[in-house]
Each structure stands twice: as C-alpha cells, then as structure tokens.
C-alpha cells in the first residue's frame, strides 16, 4: 500500500488550488481526477469571471484553468487522471480504479475532497425524452465537444447558469426560443441577463414547463403560467416548437465520499441541500478530511479556488509545514478574499448560508 501526504480528490478549481497551496508549503501532494483532463468545469467557462483583480476578474474561466495547470506543473504536482475513487474511510485509506481496470489503494495523511456537484433534474411529463438535458451538459457539448445539442432551445431556469449557457448556445449557432423561470423574478446577474435580453430572447417569468412533446425525441414544449401559489393557470398553456430543453435548476453537491467517511452533515437549502459541516480551515468533523468548492456548498469557481487554498494551507500546516503564526496569517488573507467575494446582494446570501455551515460544525 502506498502512502502520500495530501491526497486531493477532484482536480477542478478547488482541487487544483488546494494542491498548489499544499505543494508550495512543501507537502507531497497527489491530485486524483476521474476525467481525462484536469480543470473541472473551468475549460467550458468561456465567459469572463467577476470579482476583483485578485480573483482574476475579467479573465475567462478557460484561461484560469490553463494558469492553474501551469502552476501545478511548475510545482511538480502529481496528477492521476482517468482515476475514479470508489471509497475512503476515516483512517484516510482511499481506494479506486485507474483507467477502468486497475485497482489501487493508498493511505493519505490528509484528504481534501473537491468533488464538485451534479446538475439537478426536474421532472415534467416527457422529461426522459432525448433532447432534455442539463444546461451544463449542453455547455460541455458546445464548448468542449464542439457539437450543438439542438437548433431550437428552451432553457428552464434564469439563474447565471441558465443565462450564460443560453448566450453561449446562441454564440454556437443555436436559437434560444425562450427562458422559463418559475419565480416571478429573474435569477441571474444583470449583466448576463441583459446580454441575452438584448439579443432578443423571450423571458417567461412565473412560468414552468408542463410537458415535453414528441414521439422519440423532443419536438415541442408546452409551458404554462403559474399563479402566486405556484399552481398552473388553466388556459395559459403555450406550445413552443423546440428540439432541445435545457434544465438549469441548480446543483447538488457530490458528497458521497464525505458521507462514507462519516462526516456530520447540515442541510442548507441555499447551498444545494446536505453539505458536510466544516470549520474555517475547511476541515470536516472527521479529523484530517477537508472539503473545498461546490462539495462544501454550491457557489462559484472564484470562491471554490479560495476554499481550495484554505484547505491546502491548513492541511499542510497540520502536517507541520507551517508554524501556527504562518498558518493563521495565510488563512486570514484567504478569508479576507472570500469575504470580499461574498458581499453584495448575491454574495451576502451565500455568506449567511456559509456562516450557518460553520456554526453547525462548532455546535
């Protein structure tokens, strides 16, 4: 059985940032990722990020991905790709399968879970028809696989994912027939929403999908208006001709490894449901197992990177690579950055939600 200092599961923005900080501190670091390329969702994020300059605002996600990979390479960080982790335990033993065939088992001194999230499905009549897919899946198709999922698209959900992916689908050559939002108000940042609106896309607030129509695949969609009690209003049904329905209805943290390891969980609706309770160093209730990024509560790539750095710094410090003062100083700097990201009307809500998670860990 092999031994490694810090093992990071998931090589997205959080995982890579954690690895970089761990390696900078002098720890031996291993990143495990199930995909053929590290970077998580960054390489399909062709839009510019928000925040301050320190948070790489104005830089496209795809370029941030390249920067992180270059830095990881420079620090000689070991990355195992096409490697699926199948289980871990509280003693930090990790086992899994490489390249779909070879099993492995290692014991880590510290584990950082940066496994990300999965898109939520929404059920309506016909939701299993080919042509209904996650908005993130559609984004992978256009920006990574260079394939249009369809020509006429209906988007369900007006949050950032919904409007950003709608715009990118249009850039890729598809027509976005409409964006349906069940709430009476739109959910995304103004700048993204306005871009789509200026391009002529119809928004249907207080509407939902009542059914997808089609024999073997989506041929049309029926939408219906909702009253103030979220009940469909009879007679308001509209049929729109589409071949693809994209669902942007939020994400759920991929927490199975944290459950198996025995971490305490807390339910925070705004953070995507059940999330592992963790403290300000990102450590869960299982000693030596940390979380960072969407697995610790759904936010954004910019916050995921900061959380990754927190986990990396503190995992390394607990192995003796930093003295207490250095650990505190470095942690404080990252926390200042996180607090800056979590301000404003959108960020403030996330800050409150994150505070609830921190409180649950201490309580």
């Amino acid at each position: 059985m092999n031994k490694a200092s810090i093992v990071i599961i998931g090589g997205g923005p959080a995982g890579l940032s954690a690895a970089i900080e761990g390696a900078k501190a002098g720890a031996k670091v291993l990143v495990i990722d199930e995909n053929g390329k590290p970077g998580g969702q960054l390489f399909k994020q062709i839009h510019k990020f928000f925040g301050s300059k320190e948070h790489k605002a104005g830089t496209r996600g795809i370029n941030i991905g390249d920067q992180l990979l270059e830095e990881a390479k420079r620090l000689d960080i070991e990355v195992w790709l096409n490697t699926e982790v199948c289980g871990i335990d509280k003693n930090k033993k990790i086992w899994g399968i490489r390249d779909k065939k070879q099993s492995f088992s290692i014991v880590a001194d510290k584990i950082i879970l940066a496994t990300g999230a999965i898109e939520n499905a929404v059920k309506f009549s016909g939701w299993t028809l080919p042509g209904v897919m996650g908005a993130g899946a559609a984004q992978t198709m256009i920006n990574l696989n260079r394939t249009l999922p369809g020509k006429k698209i209906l988007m369900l959900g007006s949050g950032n994912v919904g409007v950003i992916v709608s715009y990118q689908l249009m850039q890729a050559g598809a027509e976005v027939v409409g964006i349906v939002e069940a709430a009476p108000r739109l959910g995304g940042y103004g700048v993204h929403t306005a871009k789509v609106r200026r391009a002529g896309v119809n928004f249907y607030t207080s509407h939902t999908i009542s059914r997808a129509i089609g024999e073997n695949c989506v041929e049309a969609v029926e939408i219906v208006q909702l009253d103030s009690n979220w009940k469909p209003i009879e007679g308001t049904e509209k049929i729109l001709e589409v071949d693809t329905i994209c669902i942007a209805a939020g994400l759920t943290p991929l927490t199975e490894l944290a459950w198996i390891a025995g971490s305490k969980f807390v339910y925070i609706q705004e953070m995507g449901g059940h999330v592992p309770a963790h403290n300000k160093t990102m450590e869960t209730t299982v000693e030596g197992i940390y979380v960072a990024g969407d697995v610790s509560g759904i936010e954004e790539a910019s916050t995921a990177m900061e959380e990754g750095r927190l986990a990396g710094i503190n995992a390394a410090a607990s192995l003796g690579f930093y003295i207490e003062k250095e650990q505190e100083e470095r942690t404080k700097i990252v926390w200042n950055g996180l607090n800056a990201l979590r301000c404003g009307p959108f960020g403030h809500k996330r800050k409150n939600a994150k505070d609830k998670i921190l409180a649950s860990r201490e309580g």
Partner: protein
Amino acid sequence: MTMDVKTKMEGFEMSDEIICRCEEITESEIVEAIRNGATTVNEIKKWTRAGMGLCQGRTCRRMIERILARETGIELKDIKPSTYRQPVRPIKMGALGE
C-alpha cells in the same frame, strides 16, 4: 430556480413519469410505496429499487426526496438522503480481483 421554488412546483400532481431511469421506476410506484408505509428514502429504495441502479440515485435521489416530502408533509431539511455505499462508482468485479 431555487430549491424552494422547485419544491412548490412539484407540489402539484404530474402524470406518471419515470423517476429512476436506471431501474425504470415511476412516480406512482414510489407514491404507492409511501402510501404502503415507507417513510424514508432508504425504505422507498428497498421497496421499489428506485435509486439502486447503475448511477446509484445520482439523478433521481433529490426528486425522490421531494416526492416523499410532498406525500408525507415531512420538511425537506428533515429528510435524510439514502445511504451511500462503497464503491461510489460503477466498476467491474474483475477490476477488484487485480
């Protein structure tokens, strides 16, 4: 769309759709299990096999939680997700023998 909105939307009855695609379990089968006494996601799983297939409930578990909340009046925050087990990824038995 927030989780809150989705919960409210799913408060109204829909036609009988497949919820668990791996095991092809419909909403009415899940509702029947609940009306027959299932009070947790784990019990629904054992009763119907919903969430027991290849993806281990990755797609359907949140929907099953919401159906359970709607049918029983238990709040979503109080519904415990079904148990996770190793391996958390589908793997071939042969790979374990290596």
